[in-house]
Every structure is written in C-alpha cells, then in structure tokens.
C-alpha cells in the first residue's frame, strides 16, 4: 500500500492514544487529533503545549537504525500493509492536516534519530501516552526535541545560542553546584591543577575565584566554596524554585513571553530550572537520552561547547 492510500484520518484522541485501556502491547493504531492542551514530559522536564496537532504513528522497533529518520509500520485489520520512513510519511500527510500552533509526533524513536522536520516535536526512546486525573493528556519520552525552524534573536553569533559571557556565568553555576554537593550525591572535587578532561573549566574556575565564589585551598590542593559562593547558590536555588512554582503549569510560549517582559533571558531560566532539578548533573547521560550524536564523553567539553546551549535554546525556540 502507498503512503497516500493509508487510512490515516482524524480519530477521537482517547481512542487514538489508547487512553481507554492500560498499556496495550498490541496497540498499533494511528491517525491524528487536535487537542487544546497536551503535556510533553521527560524525566526532569515537562512542558505544556496548547493547540496541538497530535500525529500518532508507530515506529518499527526492529527497523533499520537511521541517524535522521525513523522507520514506521502501518497495519490494517492487524496486518502490516506498509512501512515507510517518518520523513516521507510527514512530507505527504503534514500539508494535508489542519494547522495548529504545535505539531507533536506521538511515535517511539528507538534509535534516537535526530529528525529533520522543522517545527515538529518528537521524542527520543519510547513514547507513551497517559491520561492523568483531570483528563490531562501526557506524553512521556526520555527526552523531547524539536527541530529549530530558523535562526532567531537568540543567536549571539553564527552557530551559537549563547554569548561567551553568559556561558561563563552558567558554567560557573554548574561548577559551584558540583562543589556544593557531597560526592555520593553527585558532587566533585576540583584539584588546583585540573586534569586534562576538565581543562575547559580552568578559565571558569579562575573567574569564580576573581568573583570570590571559590578559593584555592593550597593545603588540600583543591578548590573550595566560599561563603559568598554558598550564598550565591542559595539565591539561585531560590530563583529556580520561584520559577518552577510560578511556571510549572504554563505553556512555554507564555513563559518565554512573560520572562522577556521581565527582561529575564529565557535561556537562563531554562538552564537554572534544569540545573536545580538535576537534569544536567550527568551531561553524558543527558546527551544519550536525547539521541545527540556523536556523544561528547568528556562532560566538561560538552558544557563549554555551543552544542549544549543550542540544544537548550532549541526547546525555547520557535514557540
């Protein structure tokens, strides 16, 4: 059967997402539905989308791994009738579907491909649909990503979503948290002379020292937090909890607009949120969950790269 001949049609969302039953392993239904509101959830992050077009399709778990596409299977009467790449499927069907502020692919992404369909939200790993009390529809994945539509004002220089100055500030916060926590809770000791794998952080630590947030403990040959650094951490934790308390239920677009009105950089808010909640504590795992390829195994290099900040900016982008 050709892609164009598939019975891909609008269906009631409860039926489309199999929300009328629990964990149906044989469910292979597909179609589309428009919803007023949906939540996209990953282990440390949740975002609300209003006015969303949900496209429910099924990935072939045992399909060929592709870096930038996902193989799909389509059934009719429990018989496989077609297999197609998501990009080809969307190229045909997306223009035929009604407009919505957001487009969400409800589709597993077993090989964590990075799709190249602009403006479409998609998950990494298993994608599942839940109906929470209050008829709240929640889609879970290891991570949710979206392809950036065009470059915007967030771009500070070609290929970068952040200025060097802001990067230094946030990387400093990252280090301070590592110094703040106990080792068994994710803390780290930074020696006076950093090993090569941490070398990108040398300049950040020097700046923190100039700002009197850290002090080199010469006896123990390590960087220690100062009282000023601890107090600073307290203020940023308060900032994060205030953000979460105020915006946890809000749609990203509204949040970004409100932050801009208050002259707060949305990227700072996004970073501080994830920083507080532990989302970035293991940056290698973070990349793996999102399907970032290739994975930068040296987390300090990734923290100081443009790629990490571009990933965060992509979540804010295009709303």
């Amino acid at each position: 059967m050709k892609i164009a001949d598939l019975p891909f049609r609008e269906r009631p969302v409860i039926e489309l997402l199999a929300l009328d039953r629990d964990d149906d392993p044989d469910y292979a239904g597909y179609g589309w539905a428009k919803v007023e509101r949906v939540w996209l959830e990953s282990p440390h992050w949740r975002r609300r989308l209003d006015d969303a077009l949900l496209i429910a399709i099924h990935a072939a778990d045992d399909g060929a791994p592709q870096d930038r596409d996902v193989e799909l299977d389509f059934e009719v009467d429990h018989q496989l009738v077609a297999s197609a790449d998501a990009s080809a499927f969307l190229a045909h069907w997306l223009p035929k579907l009604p407009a919505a502020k957001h487009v969400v692919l409800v589709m597993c992404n077993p090989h964590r491909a990075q799709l190249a369909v602009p403006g479409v939200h998609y998950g990494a790993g298993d994608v599942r649909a839940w109906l929470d009390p209050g008829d709240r529809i929640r889609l879970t994945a290891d991570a949710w990503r979206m392809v950036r539509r065009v470059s915007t004002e967030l771009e500070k220089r070609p290929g970068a979503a952040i200025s060097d100055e802001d990067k230094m500030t946030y990387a400093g916060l990252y280090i301070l948290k590592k110094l703040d926590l106990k080792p068994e809770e994710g803390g780290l000791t930074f020696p006076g002379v950093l090993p090569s794998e941490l070398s990108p952080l040398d300049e950040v630590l020097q700046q923190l020292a100039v700002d009197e947030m850290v002090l080199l403990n010469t006896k123990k040959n390590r960087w220690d937090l100062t009282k000023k650094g601890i107090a600073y951490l307290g203020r940023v934790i308060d900032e994060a909890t205030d953000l979460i308390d105020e915006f946890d239920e809000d749609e990203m677009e509204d949040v970004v607009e409100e932050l801009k009105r208050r002259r707060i950089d949305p990227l700072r808010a996004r970073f501080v949120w994830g920083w507080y909640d532990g989302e970035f504590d293991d940056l290698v795992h973070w990349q793996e969950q999102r399907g970032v390829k290739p994975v930068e195994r040296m987390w300090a290099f990734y923290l100081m790269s443009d790629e990490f900040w571009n990933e965060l900016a992509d979540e804010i982008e295009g709303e």
Partner: protein
Amino acid sequence: MLTKTKLLAAVLGVSLAIGPVAGCSSEDKGNERWATTANTNVKIDWDKVNEAYKQAEGPEDLEKRLNEIYEGDEVISVHVQDLDDKSQVVTGFFDKDSSGTVEESEKIFTIRREVKDGNAQYQTMGHGYYAGYHSPFFSIASGMLMGAMLSSMFSPTYVPVYTRPYTTSQSRISSIHNTRSSYRAANPERFQRRSQSGRAYGGGKSTGGTSRSRGGSRFGVRRDITRVRAA
C-alpha cells in the same frame, strides 16, 4: 497481610536468620553498604537490595522494590532464571539498548540463591561500576517473614517457575518509571539533595503520573520481519 507462601513458610517452621555465614570479613571493602557509579555517582544501598530480594513476592514486585531503592534516572530491569530446582540467579541490569537481554556491560548485580547440603543461602555480587561489592552469604534457614520468591522453595510441591527466564519487558519499564515517579514525588525528603546554603536541590522530582493515570501504550511495534517500503 500474610501471603499463602509466607504462611507456608511459617507452618514449615522455617525461621530466617540473615547473617554472614561464610566468606567475607565485615571489614572487606567489597562489603561496603554503599557504592557509587563512576560516572553518575548514583548510589545503591546494598542492604536494601538484599532485603528487597528477601521480601519480594515475585519478579515484578522485586522490580518495583529495586527501583524505589535506586536513586538514579535509569530503570533497573531484572532477569530471573531458575538454573535447576535448587539454584536461582537474579540479574539486575540497565537495559540500555532496549533489547530485553542482559549484556555484560549492562549488569549491575547478580543475586545467586542455592541450596547446599540442605541449607539455602543467597549472595549478591556487583558488576560494572559496582564491581567489587559482594554481600555475605545470607542464610535462609529459619522463618522470619519473607516473600514468595524465597519462601516458595520451602514448599513440598515447589517447582522452579523460571526455568524459562523472566525478564523485565519494555512495557514494564515504562510502567515502573511512572510508578517510581509517583513514589519519588511522595517522598521528596529522600530524593532532595541538601545545599550548604541551607536549601535543597530538586532531583528526580517528577511531574505528572499518578497511580490513577491510565494508558501507557507505546507507539512502536516489533515484528521481526522483512519489510517492503511504501512509496
């Protein structure tokens, strides 16, 4: 409430005494209660892991208990296999490639239960980042309460159930993740990390997902066939 198997164990007069009976010195570094991973620093409380096995009613209950103990983001899958009517091996692993099979690099621990000379015992060994941990041999010789996973072996009609191994399915992993999120949200004091500023960091605090949530179907299918691409 006592389960049938717990009652059976009690009727059999089996009292359970947990304690080192062989092998390891308590000062052995490999016996430390806590261990951390090399890259994530996620700790595992081995005392609780050993207790979870003792109390588990079955593999699914064991999965639930283990993932409430584990404080990292990953879900611990289990593979349970009865090697014969005396030996059982439980492997905890991170199913990183979603294959449903245990790869050596995915192993976290194995628990080996066996009967020797009429005495039952089990021991836990760490793997990978947790290599080096090895529990004492825990004797299963008397009748404190224990779950069906252990107590069933004392039944006169005992037949090994997992000669065909049980492995955590992909659908279970999602379900466990959801249940664990609710558990963590309900126990914030355990999953918050203290800052020297007197505040606490968040961590693993999840968002939605309650035991009253419905659905959970996944949007992928597995067929193990050769496909013909549609145009």
